[in-house]
């Protein structure tokens, strides 16, 4: 199977496009609303969402990379220089000045060529070698991908790193701040990143010029902790849950709502909890024929208990087709 066949299909676009995708049912419902999410459909016929990384996280990664590549490079060079001169002194090497000058020349050339390579090719090499990550990106859990969600190749990595120069523009000389007129081609100029920020702000995937030319995007790939269901210590929750009529089915959207409610309960405070729950609870109390003065928050917790923690009835309307649970097997 060629690579082109296995290419994943992408769906990204302005929001009105994405809303339509929600209708095809492949996508998790919450992926349609958020702006920085990109849905990828893989060859396994599954859609999942990527978070597109924003400019400021990427700036941090870039600064880290700069620190690591340039600072480390010059640190190594300086250490080597000291080590070599110390070594030469300690063995009291007697060499003629011509040879010494020649050796110094070679060292100088190597240092400059190395600096050229680090400046222009560090990002390209690292992103090809480590599957779209440099050191800085790795530390900040970022990854470069093609816009279709597949991995980048070496030419894309090279191009997007060449064009970084354009994103750093315009270069402004700090001499202007102190009122001095900078000379043409002054080495003292500081990148302002204005152009890159402007281009990022006006494109769909926060692409800077380099991403644009290479057809790449940067996604945020956090390592989330496995989630836990809420656990109620209050025994009243379970007893109230048993009072809810057995034929009441918690629908899919209602269970999502309950999960959101319970996960945020701890941050809201009792009064706010009551206020939110009171939009819903009186209607339910009437339907369940429970006493009017039942605590709203408690009822929400009981419903959560019913939805997630206790055995649901078999004739669940959402799961008429019983899902096949694939078992992990090594054949």
């Amino acid at each position: 199977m060629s690579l082109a066949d296995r290419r994943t299909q992408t769906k990204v676009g302005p929001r009105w496009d994405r809303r339509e995708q929600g209708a095809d049912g492949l996508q998790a419902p919450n992926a349609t609303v958020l702006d920085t999410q990109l849905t990828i459909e893989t060859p396994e016929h599954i859609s999942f969402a990527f978070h597109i990384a924003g400019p400021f996280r990427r700036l941090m990664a870039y600064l880290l990379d700069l620190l690591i590549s340039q600072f480390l490079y010059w640190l190594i060079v300086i250490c080597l220089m000291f080590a070599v001169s110390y070594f030469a002194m300690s063995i009291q090497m007697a060499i003629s000045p011509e040879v010494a000058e020649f050796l110094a020349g070679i060292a100088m050339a190597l240092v400059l060529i190395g600096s050229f390579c680090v400046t222009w090719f560090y990002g390209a090499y690292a992103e090809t070698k480590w599957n779209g990550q440099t050191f800085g990106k790795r530390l900040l859990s970022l990854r470069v991908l093609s816009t279709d969600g597949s991995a980048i190749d070496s030419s894309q990595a090279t191009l997007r790193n060449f064009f970084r120069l354009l994103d750093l523009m315009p270069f402004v000389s700090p001499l202007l701040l102190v009122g001095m007129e900078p000379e043409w081609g002054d080495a003292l100029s500081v990148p302002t990143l204005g152009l890159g920020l402007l281009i990022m702000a006006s494109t769909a995937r926060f692409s800077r010029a380099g991403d644009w030319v290479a057809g790449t995007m940067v996604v945020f790939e956090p390592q989330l902790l496995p989630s836990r269901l809420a656990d109620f210590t209050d025994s009243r929750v379970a007893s109230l849950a048993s009072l809810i009529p057995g034929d009441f089915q918690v629908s899919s959207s209602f269970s999502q709502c309950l999960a959101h409610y319970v996960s945020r309960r701890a941050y809201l405070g009792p009064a706010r909890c009551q206020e939110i729950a009171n939009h819903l609870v009186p209607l339910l109390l009437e339907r369940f024929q429970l006493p009017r003065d039942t605590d709203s928050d408690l009822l929400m917790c009981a419903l959560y208990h019913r939805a997630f923690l206790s055995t649901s009835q078999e004739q669940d309307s959402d799961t008429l087709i019983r899902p096949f649970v694939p078992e992990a097997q090594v054949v």
Partner: protein
Amino acid sequence: MKVAELIQKRQADWSELERLISELSSRVRKVESIKLRRFGVLYRNACADLALVTAYQLPPDTTAYLHDLVARAHNQLYRSESFQYQQWLFVLFIETPRRIFCDPCVHIAMLIFWGLFGLSAWLSYEQILWPEFATSVVGEEQLEAFVQMYSQFGDGRGAGGNVAMTGFYVFNNAGIGLACFVSMLFFLPGLVTLSFNAVYLGAVFGFMFRPENGEAGANFQNFVTAHGPFELTAIILSAGAGLRIGHKWLFTGGLRRADALKLGGREALPIVMCAVVLFVLAALVEAFVSPGASAIVPWWVKGMVAVGSSGLLMFYFIILGYPWNRRALPRASARQVEGML
């Protein structure tokens, strides 16, 4: 089944997948094949779980966790292809020269550069039509500095100085070339840079060859001959590569602008890499051959170097570049285009 039980049951698999992902991404040593196989199974299972989140009625944070897990596993499964060194010979000796030979953007860059260079050199040399041309382009002080510099030129540098200068020339000139390439994305600044370089260089050349600068002119000629072919070609190539991208994004040829830009990038990359190689070669010649004093490196040697390097370039661009058979497409290969659309 309880959702809680279901999550607990699947959690073992998810954690194992997570462990395998971190093992694959650190890649300290090769991952055993049995684990890779297991990775595939676990990944498909996680995909299936994700597909069924709605049916399972999983809570939203579990869904988010699954999205993240599948995305990370996907990125480990479909990895970037490493550098394919075997392909480099093909790219270097067949694809790149053909692309350069057939690329109208390179031709245009060449015409602009040599046209402006020649015009400006002529204007600067003959002093009847526009006597102040050279001084108004380069500036009086600069010109005097040039004359000053080249009248003292004679003994050359020591060998160590030569080697050090190689590094400097690579760092400086190739960097400028790449900057020229990059700024061509917006067409106008790139064209301005290219034209400025052509006019400036032309003015300096014309001025130095005036009869009144006899000694300095001879020294100047002595210095620039050897590395001229490589360096000027490299300037033209990097401008041409930039022009290719800038042109693609203005005239898309029926593609979407973003796709056209991507295509242009793919086509331009070999050209600009070729320019970088030429800059490095030019730096070597410029550091070792050009500054040699006439006693060590006589004038005819420098001339021969210039002729030889021009011959080499012609062989590369014309003999290797001429599309002898139509089989290997000089444009981006069909697969790349297909993958893009």
